[in-house]
């Protein structure tokens, strides 16, 4: 799909094919941290950073190492190793050079290794056969889309403290239902651009 501009993919990844609301990726950490806006934003920033870079690294490894050697079946284990190593590296780097950023971002970094949004972006990149620039746009857009969704829902969940929720729905159940409503509103963007 070499003909689609990276800009289109960026917009599509944020709005029409939102990685959380349309592809359900990153739900676990989403439910854990979407109770407050500031923590949601912190994790979102870390996710944007890590998806963008791991997508680029995984693109290079997949197309220049695994494909020529015929080892594409190993892609899962390679991708998750790259992600884990990258997260570890970023954590050490940030701790050494920017203690302030480390305190803001630090606690979220280990969570990211098992965030399926990161691995999901790399896998979608392979399935949809993106070029390098498209992959970077998709990685960045996917992270931004995830952050947008999680911040919007954190805002709703903060307000929900003041509403009376039916007893069995309290907790996760009502969070799922409002996420469904949010997904419905994002479907309104569907006519803008489409990527497959």
């Amino acid at each position: 799909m070499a003909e689609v501009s990276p800009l289109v993919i960026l917009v599509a990844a944020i709005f029409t094919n939102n990685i959380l609301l349309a592809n359900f990726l990153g739900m676990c950490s989403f439910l854990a941290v979407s109770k407050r806006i500031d923590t949601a934003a912190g994790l979102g920033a870390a996710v944007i950073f890590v998806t963008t870079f791991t997508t680029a690294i995984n693109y290079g490894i997949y197309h220049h190492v695994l494909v020529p050697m015929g080892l594409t079946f190993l892609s899962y284990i390679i991708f998750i190793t790259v992600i884990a190593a990258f997260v570890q590296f970023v954590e050490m780097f940030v701790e050494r050079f920017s203690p302030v950023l480390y305190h803001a971002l630090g606690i979220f970094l280990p969570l990211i290794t098992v965030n399926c949004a990161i691995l999901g972006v790399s896998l979608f990149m392979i399935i949809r056969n993106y070029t390098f620039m498209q992959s970077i746009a998709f990685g960045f857009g996917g992270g931004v889309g995830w952050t947008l969704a999680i911040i919007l829902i954190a805002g709703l969940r903060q307000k929900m403290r003041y509403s009376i929720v039916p007893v069995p729905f309290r907790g996760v159940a009502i969070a799922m239902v409002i996420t469904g409503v949010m997904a419905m509103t994002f479907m309104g963007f569907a006519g803008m651009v489409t990527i497959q």
Partner: protein
Amino acid sequence: MAHSGPVVCAICGGSGPCDGKGRETLRAGVWVTNPVSVQVLGICSALAVTNKLENALVMGAALMFVCVGTNLFVSLLRNVTPRRIRMIAEVAIIATFVIIFDQVLRAYYLEMSKQLGPYVGLIITNCIIMGRAEAFALSNRPVVSMLDGLANGLGYAVVLGIIGFVRELMGTGALFGHQILAAEWYTPNQLMILAPGAFIALGFLIALHNAITGVNKPEGKGN
């Protein structure tokens, strides 16, 4: 989710024989601490592949296979794995089983492999498997660990089956592709097979589980 009986078998881990705990382990995995509807783990795939009952069941089988295999090997290696690198070791074991399942699916059932797309690979980051390896297999004997993996995989598969059943039936009026609800009087609600239907169906399922077991928070936090 304030359950008093978390993992029953942790008591007998290592020392005594685990025979008497088999039923409790199964019950915990499938119902009491069901990984999806109580612990809310691994819901990415629970939402993504449940637009058809068939997809949901294949995904359930995949998770059962990976969870049993991972628990077995993590348990076998539990005394020789250094604590500091155990996470990496667990991820490597999980990824190996996922690759095996993925290759088998591609070889014998390519159509399904295409429909499930990236979600088979995403079993690697499914929190249920990592969670069971960490919470159970690391401190229990191989046989009972496998049973725990089977129970949790089954609990996941049952929930996926229910959601897949409801979504396919309401969204298309069919099950396994066969028309069940006659088109003369039932207009399929397309929303159910799209993304919002998945969130809402799972939300109602969790609420139903809460209503049956009576798990509520008396302090009434609305979030």
